[in-house]
């Protein structure tokens, strides 16, 4: 299986403050991999570096092609989509307009309507509200729209930042099933999650970050079993 995304000794710092140091990770095509860690461990900085939203040192390659230093809009065009932390929808735009923004790079011609129908099939609630302002949706609906906005650009790599944040347990359960469905349709997913237990249940492989450095990595099953993960994150 070819490696879709490779990151090697990644350094991200804001002014004098280092956020990520010497990080290395991979995402083989077709897999779900999770990045775990407490608040401020550098998870979001890592994601923003991959997306080209912050300046970083080190190598980032998408299918072997170096993308570090490229502007965000060009990285997106290579098939990278983002479900940001806290969803960050365009709240003054309607649901439909948010989807149009999702497909901004690909344009709204070829098959856009078909893709939207496909998404509405997956998230029927969005179809009912498609003329509403995104800001007026409930938490769960906003999460659906954030994912829909990313999917409509037909990415090859989906980066999700804290998707379960602020959602009711029942909604989180349904959300993680949907993530598996999306992955089953061939979309590789890199997921940042504080909810380590849920994440490890659906991720194939996981990386544990502590204060900007890689503390541990391995297949999810192995990490589930290891006691320091248990103690540190699963409230064992």
């Amino acid at each position: 299986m070819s490696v879709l995304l490779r990151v090697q000794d990644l350094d991200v710092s804001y002014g004098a403050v280092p956020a990520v140091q010497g990080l290395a990770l991979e995402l083989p095509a077709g897999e779900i991999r999770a990045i775990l860690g407490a608040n401020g461990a550098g998870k979001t900085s890592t994601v923003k570096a991959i997306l080209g939203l912050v300046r970083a040192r080190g190598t980032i390659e998408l299918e072997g092609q170096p993308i570090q230093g490229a502007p965000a809009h060009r990285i997106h065009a290579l098939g990278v989509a983002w479900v940001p932390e806290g969803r960050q929808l365009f709240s003054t735009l309607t649901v439909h307009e948010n989807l149009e923004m999702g497909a901004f790079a690909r344009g709204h011609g070829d098959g856009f309507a078909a893709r939207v129908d496909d998404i509405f099939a997956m998230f029927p609630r969005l179809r009912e509200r498609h003329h509403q302002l995104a800001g007026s949706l409930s938490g769960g609906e906003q999460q659906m729209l954030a994912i829909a906005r990313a999917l409509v650009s037909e990415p090859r790599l989906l980066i999700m930042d804290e998707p379960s944040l602020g959602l009711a347990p029942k909604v989180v359960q349904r959300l993680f099933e949907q993530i598996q469905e999306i992955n089953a349709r061939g979309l590789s997913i890199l997921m940042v999650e504080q909810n380590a237990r849920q994440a490890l249940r659906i991720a194939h492989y996981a990386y544990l970050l502590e204060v900007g450095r890689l503390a541990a990595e391995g297949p999810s099953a192995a990490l589930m079993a290891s006691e320091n993960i248990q103690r540190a994150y699963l409230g064992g």
Partner: protein
Amino acid sequence: MDLFLQQVLNGVMIGSTYAVVALGFSLVFSVMRVVNMAHPEFFMAGAFGAYVMTRYVTTNVAGVLAGGMLVAAAVGLVVERLAIRPVRGRYVMIPFIATSGVGIALQHLAERVFGSDPVAIPAVVPAASYTFGPVSVTRMQLVTFAIAVVLMLGLRYYVRNTKWGRATRAVAERPEVAAAFGVDVDFVSRLTVGISALMAGAAGVSIGMLYTSAWAFMGLIYGLKSFVCMLVAGNRHVEGVMVVGLMLGVLEALVSGYLTSTLRDAVAFGVLVVVLVFKPNGLFGSYSV
């Protein structure tokens, strides 16, 4: 009663001149969080563009309008590249000062090129005045008002129903997320300043013809009043600035007409400040800056 109607009409006409300048000002402010203090000088460049067109090129209205708008847009794009883009993400006062410096330079450059006296712009639109009962208005006033309305509707359509308009609104609210979905934020910034400069150019041409003159320092009074309209309207809805501009115009006309015009600006500013005490985020709401 007749005088009251005439004063309200006078006010609407004056208000439309504030609104048409404020439209471009508030577009750049709402999309890019940049207070472009050189915007009044784009407006002045438009007026001088009209002057140059009428004297050396053509007196056909469309030609003069296009000439003025292109001159203003050219100045706008140069200023965007040199003084706005380098400091775009910074604290709101930094682009404020950078563009203030550009404004000062452009005013005195115009003074060096065109002299310190105002220059006359011949009436390209054949002068005529219409009377409806007690109320009279001139053709050029109606043309200026029409240009303001057309620009506002055009901007509204662009912002609501076009791909790049939607992208501009997305950048206004969440520049980072918009970039992550393929929007080249630098291009949107150039596009936004370009559009605001085109509108300022149209305002410069119409106001230059309405008051039949262009002057190196004509931008100052418009800069102050359209800045006030922009803040009072809030930066969420660009059309809001049109409504506030008309309100300010009518307010000034009524104060001049019925109180004393010596206190005109004091009363106008006073009322706008009172509005803000009750609606701290502007009449129509705004994004945080």
